């Protein structure tokens, strides 16, 4: 079996096991993963540069489109940044509605993740069930905001739509049903053998390594790292909302499953609290179009973890620099640690275990030019052609 030692196989960018294109080079010894290398940059979209060319109102809708799942948390960060520089006070009711959206988003994101995880372990029944329940959350979002995915709800100075009494009633009604379903998933997750066999002891991430690689969100919390931006640095209306931070110490994919299922209950309780204590009053404060010179940084707890945005303004109606660090960017390095020592068949569920969103995360990859026959050496077309012909000739696989 010597010839099987340390075989390198590329997974991605296009691969049936991956939901989004990203390249993982996996070194295998037999069926065991020895090393994993991640190469990013395939789905880079240049949003940060595009932001600099648009005014602050137009950017609301561009930033919303960084992510399709956690779109509200990105706009939340953006408006927090702009409001910090403008120094305007947001009405309490608007803060509560924003928190409601953040939590509804967490609900549907976690339900979506459970479906994807179920699909990756070949348990499509779970996928169908969770996505059916997720549809209820999306119906609420559509009912309140008018859109299912990119809600266009946040604006500088507050929110764009108010919540009426019958909307409030519908939200509370749906929460009763979703709580029942969440209780069912909780029971299923710890008892269903299909989940236990595929998730327990898979993708181990020790707490000290999680801290060292700066893992965030449910990935870190499943490794016993007690970190949650909602509690540590409360934004929106989290300061006067009671909730618990869920952590487990199993450090594996199963732990990530349990953390997300238990967070469903927390989200449902937060939504109930917000709806029962919704303050009356205005939903929007007046905001000027031009933003004075200054810089601001803001972070929120996205469904996947800590999301950081940075804004520098120069006194015009367009930002000078905008920087986004999405939670997947922070969690991505820990994948390569989790993969070591596992089986090839577990790669999809481990990659899916951090709830990756490659489109949000991707960054430009800058190559340093190296010398010939060394890593980083850039070939021109003519050189590449000659290299290709030579390579095939040595293999004997191509007729000259």
């Amino acid at each position, binding site marked *: 079996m010597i010839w099987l030692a340390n075989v390198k196989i590329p997974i991605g960018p296009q691969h049936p096991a991956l939901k989004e294109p990203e390249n993982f080079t996996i070194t295998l010894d037999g069926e065991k993963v020895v090393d994993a290398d991640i190469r990013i940059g395939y789905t880079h979209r240049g949003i940060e540069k595009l932001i600099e060319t648009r005014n602050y109102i137009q950017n*609301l809708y561009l930033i919303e489109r960084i992510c399709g799942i956690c779109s509200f948390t990105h706009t939340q960060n953006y408006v927090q940044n702009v409001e910090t520089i403008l120094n305007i006070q947001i009405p309490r009711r608007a803060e509560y509605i924003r928190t409601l959206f953040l939590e509804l988003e967490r609900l549907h994101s976690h339900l979506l993740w459970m479906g994807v995880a179920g699909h990756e372990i070949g348990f499509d029944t779970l996928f169908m*069930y969770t996505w059916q329940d997720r549809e209820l959350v999306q119906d609420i979002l*559509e009912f309140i905001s008018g*859109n299912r995915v990119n809600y266009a709800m946040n604006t500088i100075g507050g929110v764009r739509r108010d919540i009426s009494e019958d909307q409030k009633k519908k939200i509370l009604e749906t929460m009763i049903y979703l709580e029942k379903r969440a209780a069912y998933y909780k029971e299923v997750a710890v008892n269903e053998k299909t989940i236990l066999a595929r998730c327990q002891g898979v993708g181990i991430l020790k707490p000290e390594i999680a801290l060292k690689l700066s893992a965030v969100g449910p990935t870190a919390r499943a490794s016993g790292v007690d970190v949650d931006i909602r509690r540590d640095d409360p934004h929106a209306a989290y300061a006067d909302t009671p909730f618990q931070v869920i952590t487990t110490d199993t450090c594996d994919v199963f732990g990530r499953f349990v953390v997300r299922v238990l967070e469903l209950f927390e989200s449902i309780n937060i939504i109930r609290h917000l709806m029962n204590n919704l303050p009356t009053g205005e939903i929007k404060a007046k905001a000027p179009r031009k933003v004075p010179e200054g810089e601001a940084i803001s972070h929120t707890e996205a469904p996947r973890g800590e999301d950081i945005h940075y804004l520098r303004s120069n006194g015009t109606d367009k930002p000078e620099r905008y920087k986004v660090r999405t939670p997947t960017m922070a969690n991505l390095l820990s994948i390569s640690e989790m993969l070591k020592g596992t089986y090839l068949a577990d790669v999809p569920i481990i990659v899916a275990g951090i709830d990756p969103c490659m489109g949000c995360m991707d960054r430009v990859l800058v190559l340093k030019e190296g010398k010939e026959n060394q890593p980083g050496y850039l070939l021109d077309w003519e050189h590449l052609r000659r290299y290709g012909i030579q390579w095939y000739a040595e293999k004997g696989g191509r007729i000259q």
Partner: protein
Amino acid sequence: MKMPGKMLPKIFGFIFKKPVTVLYPKERLTPPKGLRGKMKFHLERCIHCGLCSHDCPSGACTMQLITGDKKQPVFDLDFCTFCAQCEEVCPKDAIEMTTEFELAHYKRGEAIVK
């Protein structure tokens, strides 16, 4: 030992239930009242200020000369993201979002609201 099939009773229960989805062209779900669908433009209320095209994030709304001597907004739904920013920014409520969502068409330039 834990036995597989914890979900089996529910799964069998679902066999006798009606499908969650509906057969679309025959049955239709009514969209919620606040849905942001195709917009309606009231020319008589328009004061030709151009704020809608200034704030449009996708370039769907442009000011063009159609009738008279003043430019009016023209909405190309091929570009529209249905964020309803134009409706929000309009000082005279000349733009109104309707719940019409079936906007499929064959060629570019067929879905234009004037």
